[in-house]
């Protein structure tokens, strides 16, 4: 069983490929997207993804816009922002908008895995709560 199912979103294809290999080796289920729009479409089509690792600076739909869209359309999916130094402000803005955390690029692999694990755990926790709430609701209805 994989630690988590994640999606890597960045416009830099070689970066995404290298990361995919490394993360797969560390027992992560990795999906990829090369633009914000692409990521949204894939998220909507396949609900397995638990954590999205999102580059802030992308041509077209940038990280912040994508984050907003994700939070609107698939609110349970956790988002970790990836940023270069110059865009810390936008990462902080991302946190305000509901991102789980942000990481500086290039990032330490262990650190990343830890964050992803945390994020996935939280997502599962959220889901569990929702399921429990539903069960309660159903039992309450039966009773």
């Amino acid at each position, binding site marked *: 069983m994989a630690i988590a199912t994640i999606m890597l979103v960045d416009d*830099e294809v*070689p*970066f995404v490929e*290298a*990361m995919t*290999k*490394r993360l797969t*080796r560390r027992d992560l289920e990795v999906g990829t997207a090369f633009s914000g729009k692409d990521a949204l479409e894939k998220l909507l089509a396949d609900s397995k993804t638990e954590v999205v690792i999102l580059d802030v*600076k*992308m*041509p*077209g739909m*940038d990280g912040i816009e994508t984050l907003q869209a994700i939070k609107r359309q698939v609110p349970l999916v956790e988002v970790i922002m990836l940023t*270069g*130094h*110059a*865009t810390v402000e936008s990462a902080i803005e991302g946190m305000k908008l509901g991102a789980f955390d942000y990481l500086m*690029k*290039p990032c330490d*692999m262990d650190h990343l895995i830890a964050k992803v694990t945390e994020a996935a755990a939280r997502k599962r926790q959220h889901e569990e709560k929702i399921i429990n709430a539903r069960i309660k609701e159903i039992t309450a209805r039966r009773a």
Partner: protein
Amino acid sequence: MNRNLPPLSPYYRSLTRNMVLLVMVISFTPMVLVTGIILDQFSSSHHEKVFAHLGELVLKHKQNIDSFLDEKVQNIRFLADSIDFDRISQPGIIAEDLSRLQSAYGTVFVDLGVVNEQGQQVAYAGPFNLENAIYADADWFKKAIQSNYFTSDVFLGLRGSPHFIIAVRKTWQGQKWIIRATIDFLSFNRLVEKVRIGETGFAYILNREGQFQTKPIFDFTPTLDIYSRYFATLSRMGKEVEIQERLDGAGVKSLYVSALLKGGDWLLVYKQASSDAFSDLHNAQIIALVFFVLGGIAIVAMAVWMSGRMVRRIATSDKEKEIMNEQVIETGKLASVGELAAGIAHEINNPVAIMVEEAGWLQDLMEDGAYKNEADIKEFERALNQIRTQGKRCKEITHKLLSFARKTDSRIEDFEIGHLIEEVVALSAQRAKYSNVELTTRLEPKLPAISASHSELQQVFLNLINNALDAMDKTGGTLEISARQEEGQILIGVADNGPGIPKANLARIFDPFFTTKPVGSGTGLGLSICYGIIQKMGGTIAVKSALDVGTTFEIRIPVKTDDTVENRTVVSASDTCN
């Protein structure tokens, strides 16, 4: 001031000249006016004073001489009353009369004689042997016989020396008798001779024929017309004294003061050279002139010195201002490079991240004990290639930055602008990409060279592109940079289709410190620096903008010709006036 100062440019030289002229005009005008008015006033009042003084003097002498003559006539009349004509021809009688006369009135009377109606001198006493002299044809006798008393003009007469006669007519026993006395010419002459003023002032007496009645100190021949005019003027006007200033026979300007004597028969003339009469005035004028010249020299020297100093100071402050402008431009350059740095950092961060991940992947593989089979070795090769590719990418970026940063000096060079535009565009391409701006260039090939500073122009385009990208950051759009030749100028357009600039701001965008960006984000110097740089080159920068349509900056730079350098100095010079 030290002498090692560099020569000033023509602009400053003409500035100096204008200041010198202005100072001189302002200083000389009142000086000339004041000096002129005072001299004129002084001169006229001095003339009046001199005229009055001389008039008074001549009048006094006229009265003096007239009363002298009158007195002599009275003396003779008094004598005539006591003469006994019966005995007169007896020797000794007349000599006794003469000695009585001389003892009473001095030696003014030289001789004494009695002439009968026929003109024969019947009695005589005196130094000459004139007994029984016949005067029937003498002028004086003809006139003397007509009136009770008569004073003659000076004449030589029988004795052959100048003298004049006072004659008194007496009637005795139906016969007319004339008692005549000769006046000592020297003592009469002394009356006039003592009228001496200054070096050239002297007096003389003329009769109506223009003959001297006294012996003038300076010998000259009187012009009859002039003196007869005096006679006419004086007797017609009824004035006692007539003063005239005119050239004398020798061409020297002289003062003539004249008065009638002896009931209009004689003219007393006082003559003095004007320069002598007005010597005080001349002294004053010379002193004034000396002060004027000295003052003038002082004014000119001061004007030249002060203007020179002031212009030097202006030149220095202009230079300082220029240096400061350069510093502002340099600062602006740093600011725009800083803005670039954000984009560049991200740009360089991406390949670095890839390299780090690929290296990490290789490490992962090695930890797994790979490189045993063909596939692993292939993966190694691929990863290493990827690292090299990304390394090259980094190198390109750093080279772009380096080539930009290297040309930091603002030396004036001749170059073609197309290459520079391409360079700046390449540098901004990444930023444009992230702002979703399509950055294109449309450059006419083979543009003529321009003469400008490479780094300053880079800054202009970087500023304009950065501004356009900032404006379109949210919306995206297109930014086209075009360059073409037009009428000896290169026309460069930087056109975006962003939100445009509101009319209210349009007029102020080139003002320094005008910015619409939030505090801390923009200095408001970018466009004003662009404006300064383009102006300095002798070019123009203009902006057209419409809301929601876009903004176009249009730059015109003159194509390099031989006189470009001259234009530059003129422009910079006029700049410093603003």
